[in-house]
């Protein structure tokens, strides 16, 4: 279970990892403190997010939701305390980039078509050719985004961009998806499309963690909500997972 042992023995490494993955929660945070420009931006004594769970981060602007999401995805550091992802420390975690993706509030796509974006994300996972085509076709089918496939990524609307960004993460194989304000500043049609997306992901057992101001999204989607107050995390009891 310790990082040193993982580094020292490749065989045991796999055994340890598999064991960890099987039993461990998606995220396990303890005594975390992250400072930005010497001020405490996020502090959290304890937080566990189980695999397959859908968790909403709520709280006012600047309360640390986005920072926490980025910390969980290893995009920010260094920090004090400990974050485990699937039972292994986040730093040098071999599973992090394969299994987890963070999606921005206003995501960016790369130059080229939507299809180019999917192919690029798959290429980063060393998936090419027929296998890549199959994965893209499956993703397109699953989220009904066929009409977008050949469009220039830079010319999509905000809602379309959001959907493509999530689909890109899924196509790349992520089953732990972190989303920052997935339905903010979006018309109701796009909002409900994203909502349908997330429901579909939840049904298939994907771990979803998202920040939001949207109370109805929390009610519809989240099994649990975690409230943030000026950087402090208050782990709230389950809301019961109403559908």
């Amino acid at each position, binding site marked *: 279970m310790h990082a040193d042992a993982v580094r020292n023995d490749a065989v045991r490494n796999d055994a340890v990892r598999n064991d960890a993955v099987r039993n461990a929660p998606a995220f396990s945070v303890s005594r975390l403190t992250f400072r930005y420009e010497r001020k405490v931006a996020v502090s959290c004594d304890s937080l566990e997010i189980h695999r397959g769970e859908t968790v909403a981060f709520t709280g006012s602007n600047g309360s640390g939701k986005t920072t926490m999401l980025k910390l969980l995805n290893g*995009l920010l550091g260094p920090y004090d305390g400990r974050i485990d992802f699937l039972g292994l420390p986040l730093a040098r975690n071999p599973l992090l*980039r*394969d299994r987890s993706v963070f999606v921005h509030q*206003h995501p*960016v796509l*790369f*130059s080229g078509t939507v299809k180019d974006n999917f192919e690029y994300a798959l290429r*980063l996972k060393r998936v090419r050719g027929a296998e890549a085509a199959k994965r893209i076709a499956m993703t397109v089918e699953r989220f009904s985004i066929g009409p977008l496939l050949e469009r220039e990524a830079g010319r999509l609307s905000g809602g379309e961009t959001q959907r493509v960004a999530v689909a890109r993460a899924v196509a790349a194989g992520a089953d732990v998806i972190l989303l920052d304000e997935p339905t903010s500043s979006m018309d109701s049609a796009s909002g409900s499309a994203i909502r349908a997306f997330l429901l579909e992901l939840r049904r298939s057992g994907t771990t979803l963690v998202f920040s939001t101001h949207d109370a109805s999204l929390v009610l519809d989607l989240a099994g649990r909500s975690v409230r943030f107050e000026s950087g402090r995390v208050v782990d709230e009891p389950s809301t019961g997972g109403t559908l």
Partner: protein
Amino acid sequence: MNALGNAFSLLAGGERETWWTIATSLRFSLWSTVFAVIPGVPLGAALFLGRFKGKRVAVAMVNAIMAVPTVVVGLFVYSFISRSGPLGSLNMLYAPAGVIAGQALLAFPLVTAMSYTGLQKLDPRYNETLLTLGARPWRRMIAIIREGRFVIVQAVLAGFGRVTGEVGVSMMLGGNIRWYTRTMTTTIALDAGKGEFERALSLGIVLLGVALSINFLSHLAVRDAR
């Protein structure tokens, strides 16, 4: 005014040596820009992406080197490519290769610094998206250069502008040899000193045109980046 008229007629008349000098200048500048860009742009991108100790020192060093006068760069390269220097056997001094080497060394820190500062204007979400999708450093660098191509174009143009307009390196390493290493700027330096203003002026007009074109292209790049 008469001199200006003569300058234009020198150009319009297609006087061979004048046009040869222009072509040679552009040839040196283009090649040296190529040799400056090949290491400069990736290095600028690496500085932008990298999170390592001493990064600030590295950036400060690049900026400092950028401010070194052309004649100092010329002197430095001279000491290397002189036949009595360590690279003497390559016979680059007073030859096009010497000028190109010196100019490339001149443009390299500028291209690096401009790439670095230019990429900082790029949306930080690109880098985060690449990270979260699991792009390894090398791939991230390529993708960042691709997404930031408009600022990269500006950096390249700035490098080209600097070497086209410089005289110290061309004079010191090229020797201003007729039909061989004579460039627009060395001709101007030479002809103006001799009181022959027509050719100097006509080349000055061309240099002005080059500078204006660079500014225009740079402006296009900024506009298109939005």
